[in-house]
């Protein structure tokens, strides 16, 4: 199983996403934003970071990168695509996912170990969770406030496209506590928190039983492997 991780100028968590893919048992493949080539990968991760400095709007400039043409085609053909944080912002800017992101309501960058509920365990990236499961995933962003018009919110809530919701604390003012969404088909998923930072004991978020021990993020990647194996 080969999972591609695209590096854009300003990508930061690309090597972390590659590590997470490896820890989950797949082969990470480094892809470059400027190529028109997906190197035959089976799934794609758009990693976190500040592509193009997040100038203009987070993810906006990267969403026009050459490789995005191939990503859009592959996504529409059903390939699993995960956008993490900046990757989520790019997928929204590219209109592969609904909604948009604005500056956090409190105006500051925030980093915290965030509790999420899995609202839909039927997507390519969540099938190894139970619906309703609560997980802890590190969150770190400045422009993470999910917004959409009422019509869109109604639609995605009705379709089960809200995949993750913030629990206990809404860290950025996102509408309906939405932390992550999918497309209608469920192969494209985006979320603000960083599952790749909860894959290795000793370097993950604090859990109630031990500090830095959280590995709830692994199941994102094993879900993609399972989805591809089943397909």
């Amino acid at each position, binding site marked *: 199983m080969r999972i591609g991780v695209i590096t854009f*100028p*300003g990508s*930061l*968590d690309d*090597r*972390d996403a590659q*590590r997470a893919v490896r820890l989950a048992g797949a082969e990470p493949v480094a892809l470059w934003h*400027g190529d028109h080539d997906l190197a035959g990968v089976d799934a794609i991760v758009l990693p*976190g*970071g*500040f592509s*193009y*400095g*997040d*100038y203009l709007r987070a993810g906006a400039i990267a969403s026009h990168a050459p490789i995005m043409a191939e990503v859009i085609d592959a996504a529409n053909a059903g390939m699993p695509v995960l956008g993490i944080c900046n990757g989520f912002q790019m997928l929204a800017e590219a209109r592969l996912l609904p909604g948009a992101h604005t500056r956090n309501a409190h105006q*500051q*960058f*925030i*980093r*915290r170990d965030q509790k999420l509920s899995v609202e839909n365990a039927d997507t390519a990236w969540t099938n190894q969770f139970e619906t309703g499961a609560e997980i802890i995933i*590190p969150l*770190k962003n*400045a422009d993470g406030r999910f917004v959409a018009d009422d019509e869109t919110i109604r639609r995605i809530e009705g379709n089960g496209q809200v995949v993750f919701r913030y629990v206990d604390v809404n860290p950025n003012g996102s509408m309906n506590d939405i932390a992550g969404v999918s497309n209608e088909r469920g192969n494209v998923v985006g979320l603000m928190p*960083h599952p*790749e*930072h909860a894959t*290795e004991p*000793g*370097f993950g978020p604090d859990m109630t039983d031990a*500090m*830095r021990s959280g590995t709830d993020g692994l199941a994102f990647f094993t879900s993609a492997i399972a989805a591809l194996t089943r397909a």
Partner: protein
Amino acid sequence: MHPVDDPWSFVTTSQSRSSTSLPDTVTNAAATPEKIQPYAALGLKQDEYLKIREILGRRPTSGELAMYSVMWSEHCSYKSSKNYLRQFGQKVSPKMKKNLMVGMGENAGVVDVGEGWAVTFKIESHNHPSFIEPFQGAATGVGGIVRDIISMGARPVAVMDALRFGHIDDPDTARIVHGVVSGISFYANCLGLPNIGGETYFDSVYQANPLVNALAVGVLRHEDLHLANARGVGNKVVLFGARTGGDGIGGASILASDSFSAGGPTKRPAVQVGDPFAEKVLIECCLELFKLGLVEGIQDLGAAGISCATSELASNGDGGMFIDLEQVLLRDPTLTAEEILMSESQERMMAIVTPEKLDDFLAVVAKWDVETSVLGEVTDTGRLIINWRGEEIVNVEPRTVAVDGPVYDRPVAYPTWIDALQADTTASLPRSADLRTDMLALLGSANLSDKSWITNQYDKYVLGNTALSFPDDGGMVRIDEESGLGFAVATDANGRYSQLDPYRGAQLALAEAFRNVAATGATPVAVSDCLNFGSPENPEVMWQFSKTVEALSDGCLELEIPVTGGNVSFYNQTGDQPIHPTPVIAVLGTIANVGRRIPSGWQDEGNNIYLLGI
């Protein structure tokens, strides 16, 4: 000719200036010895100016004057501290030298940490710019120290920040605190460098003079070590990264070596604006250049910009260099030659590249969308020659600019007030009968309060190797994912102790940082220090400084860990009132396997608690 009453006429950005104005050439300088030059406004003393005339055998051109003035500033030349800092190189044992790959004097020291890995780290101040424009000042402080790390050939992997602000209730404190913290957060988060610790302290002595000290750590394989020198006649001198603009012109000499009251707003140079995205791309670009072996020598551009990079690279190499200044890519085409020489535009690097590798070099740089221009080459003339529009405007021996600047043995005086201060012990303080009130007062004090409102704005996860960070005593980072090899760093300072007794205060800070590293399970191996003091022209400050360096060099000898680099920041004062002497000490340690780290905080129920020490 520049009228004396407007000494800034050649460094302002006035609209009337014509970009075709003739530069002051070497020939012209030789022919017009009587011309009056604005050396004083550029921070040079009369004897320093005369010394420059003596070195050159003529008056300097305005370009040369710009170069000497920034390079001979306190900030760049260490003219008041050099004589003391020597002790760090003198008081050393064989054990201290054993793992030292690069010692003091380079952009940052490098320590062998085993398994073919090396670590480089350094702490530096950006105090004065952070008072004027807290957000950009702090942001560009992070940017500058990170470029020092890259220029050693290392991948930057972590940052820390040691901050001191005025009284928490002063109305101006909020402006500075929030600006500084968000500047650090913005720049380091955007670079993808985890922040693994630091300090935050409030005291009214720092009211109009906050301290913003930023530390960066990098890791490299032994074979990737790079140094800042220009060797090999015919090798190309290449400037790459951001374009040169009018940022911080004169900043090196005016911003960093004078108190704020001097000058006033009309002469205040433009502040620097940081672009962390450009720096992130520059980091990846440099690392690829290093991996492919495409650079011979490299230097970052910080204070004093091109003046510093050209004269230092040439001094540390074969000595000769030719530069065509018109090749510098400009953001603002109206800049004069002098301004280009002094500009502190951020996110730039200068590399020495062999002609055979130039095409490969340019291909890598183009891949990263980084702008580049070849400025000139290494020569065997022993002179740094700079041309502008076909005319020679600089012709100097580079060492006279970069190395053999003035050195002062400033007067030192024991501060008479210190006896009274020491005699005023805690015995005279009122005792409250109520322990609860004391406890609450302590818990509610700004300096003991929780710092998570700061640290929650810093990314500690990025790169996936952070083994310890806030609220631990030291930060720890894994270097090698296979073996678990890692390093730990802690920074500490206590200006109040140093005010009471600079010798013991410095040693306490050193011991605390040492203990904080040891407490993580790592073995301390090296020290970097940022010495924040008042004016060196004040003999009492100089006494504090001399005691501090003596204490640190004695302490390091005792602990057997070398000082590998650091920074001196003088003129931290408001009016005549200096800050408390504030040496910020960073200790680096190594650990064979970060899996065996020791976090702070209670871990498991039922563990025993011991109090160690005296």
